[in-house]
């Protein structure tokens, strides 16, 4: 009866209650394997997350990457250095790690471009990037330790005392045991041990174990071994999960073209599958190929009309393409779908303002502020300062920018705009300091470089201006104003 109740609770998704019943049952009869497996499953599902989506790259992986094939890849063939083969939207602001903003936060957007060690180390690991210093799965390790600490009477299974070879031969226990070790205990080494022995028992015929082996290799950083396992699993059975994992392997190896090829092959078997299409959209996005990325996101939106990532990505694309009224429609759709958070209200407020629907602007931003957390506060105040600037209230804009800096003192965009305001007020020294601060924090932005170049040019410090304008052109080669300034400077230098 008790067991039936536990099973029922498990089916209803009430894993905590199920676990308590199982614990009581195990106290009575510690050798009952049914209850043991049930408790294992319940504990695993309690903290199960989609690990393909939740993956993130730590500093160790992005910095000490020894799989790089070429340090100077041809343009358009690398994610870390997309080059100028496609002109992205330079109007788009960048995140703190220097990537252009994307519609939603997703695995790869949080990683920095590891072009220089200095830049990677300088990128702060605050809430805005949320990147762990240590190697992969660090977040999951943290989750694992927390869940183990809260278990009264020590961990459920003592991994060091487990007779792995015994359980590897029992296939119906081995699989839940593996998932328990991998997802709940986060002990990849034991999981790998179990997977190796279990795949030997079934004579390398079970594709499921190959995938698990690949997962273990991937999180241990043995990317090439993972690739082999996934490929071999794909030969036995075509599944979307394995295709996605293989694509991730190629993204990690910085081979976007192979990744796209894999996606296309996958689409032959699973035509118009949303997950694979999303992956393609993301890869094109990080190659700065906005038009292709938009194309795929549109296909996704047709397949699945409530796909948050696709809608948000199309929205942000329209906004920075000077079509705020279209962006507004997409964000409004998200609101209809039930997304209710500070980020969305901030975006709605901005879209309303630039689409000249002034009546909603204030209420949107009020809601955004009331819902906001420490992560989004700086962004919201920064955006309000834009509205204040546009209606001509310079004092309010200054206050807002200062509030943004109070929430996040490495907010380069706010420093730059404060500098521009200071110039209007006639404080040249203060403005120069702000521009320098902005350029130091985020040298991937072109605005502060150009502004300090123009300021130096006005004052007559031509050499400084020349250096700064070259930095500006290196981050945004087609910036017209920078080119004009450079021409003027060159003309001066030839006179001399």
């Amino acid at each position, binding site marked *: 009866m008790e067991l039936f109740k536990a099973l029922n609770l498990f089916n209803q998704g009430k894993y905590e209650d199920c676990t308590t019943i199982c614990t009581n049952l195990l106290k009575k009869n510690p050798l009952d394997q049914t209850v043991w497996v049930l408790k294992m499953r319940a504990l695993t599902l309690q903290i199960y997350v989609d690990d393909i*989506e939740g993956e993130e790259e730590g500093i160790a992986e992005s910095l000490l990457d020894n799989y790089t094939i070429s340090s100077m890849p041809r343009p358009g063939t690398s994610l870390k250095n997309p080059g100028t083969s496609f002109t992205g939207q330079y109007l788009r602001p960048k995140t703190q790690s220097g990537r252009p903003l994307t519609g939603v936060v997703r695995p790869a957007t949080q990683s920095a471009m590891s072009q220089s060690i200095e830049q990677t180390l300088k990128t702060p690991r605050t809430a805005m990037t949320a990147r762990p210093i240590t190697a992969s799965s660090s977040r999951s390790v943290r*989750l694992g330790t*927390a869940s183990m*600490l*809260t278990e009264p009477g020590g961990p459920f299974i003592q991994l060091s005392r487990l007779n792995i070879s015994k359980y590897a031969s029992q296939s119906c226990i081995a699989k839940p045991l593996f998932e328990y070790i991998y997802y709940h205990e986060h002990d990849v080494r034991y999981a790998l041990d179990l997977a190796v022995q279990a795949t030997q028992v079934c004579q390398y015929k079970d594709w499921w174990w190959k995938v698990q082996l690949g997962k273990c290799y991937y999180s241990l950083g043995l990317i090439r071994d993972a690739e082999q396992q996934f490929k071999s699993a794909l030969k036995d059975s075509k599944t979307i999960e394995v295709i996605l994992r293989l694509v991730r392997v190629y993204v990690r190896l910085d081979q976007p073209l192979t990744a796209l090829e894999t996606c296309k092959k996958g689409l032959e078997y699973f035509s118009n599958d949303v997950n694979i299409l999303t992956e393609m959209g993301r890869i094109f996005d990080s190659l700065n190929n906005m038009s292709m990325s938009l194309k795929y996101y549109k296909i996704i939106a047709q397949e699945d009309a409530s796909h948050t990532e696709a809608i948000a990505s199309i929205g942000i694309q329209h906004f920075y393409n000077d079509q705020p009224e279209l962006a507004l429609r997409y964000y409004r759709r998200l609101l209809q779908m039930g997304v209710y958070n500070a980020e*969305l209200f901030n975006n709605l407020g901005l879209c309303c303002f630039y689409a000249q629907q002034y009546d909603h602007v204030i209420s949107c931003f009020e809601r955004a502020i009331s819902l906001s957390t420490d992560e*989004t506060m700086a962004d919201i105040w920064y955006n309000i300062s834009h509205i204040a600037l546009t209606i001509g209230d310079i004092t309010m804009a200054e206050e807002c920018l200062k509030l943004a800096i109070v929430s996040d003192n490495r907010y380069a965009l706010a420093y730059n705009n404060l500098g521009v305001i200071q110039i209007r007020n006639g404080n040249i020294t203060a403005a120069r300091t702000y521009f320098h601060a902005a350029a130091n924090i985020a040298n991937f932005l072109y605005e502060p470089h150009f502004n300090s170049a123009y*300021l130096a040019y006005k004052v007559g410090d031509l050499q400084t201006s020349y250096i700064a304008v070259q930095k500006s052109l290196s981050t945004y080669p087609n910036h017209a104003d920078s080119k004009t300034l450079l021409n003027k400077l060159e003309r001066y230098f030839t006179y001399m």
Partner: protein
Amino acid sequence: MSQLMDNSAEKIDVILPRQILLYQEENLDYILCKPKLIPLKSVTLEKLEKMQKDAELKMREAVEYSNENNNE
């Protein structure tokens, strides 16, 4: 923005006034950083953060509980 310009294939006739002089002048000016839309959070990320918060809360409770027991 750049895409829009590329697509505009239509040509507009140039109108030149006959009598007065026409000036065209472009002035450089300081530029502002653009407004920033905030990326939304995916369902997985929200779940992860929620789990992390819950875990922290549970740990704190456990620590407080053990502290109370030790004091008694």
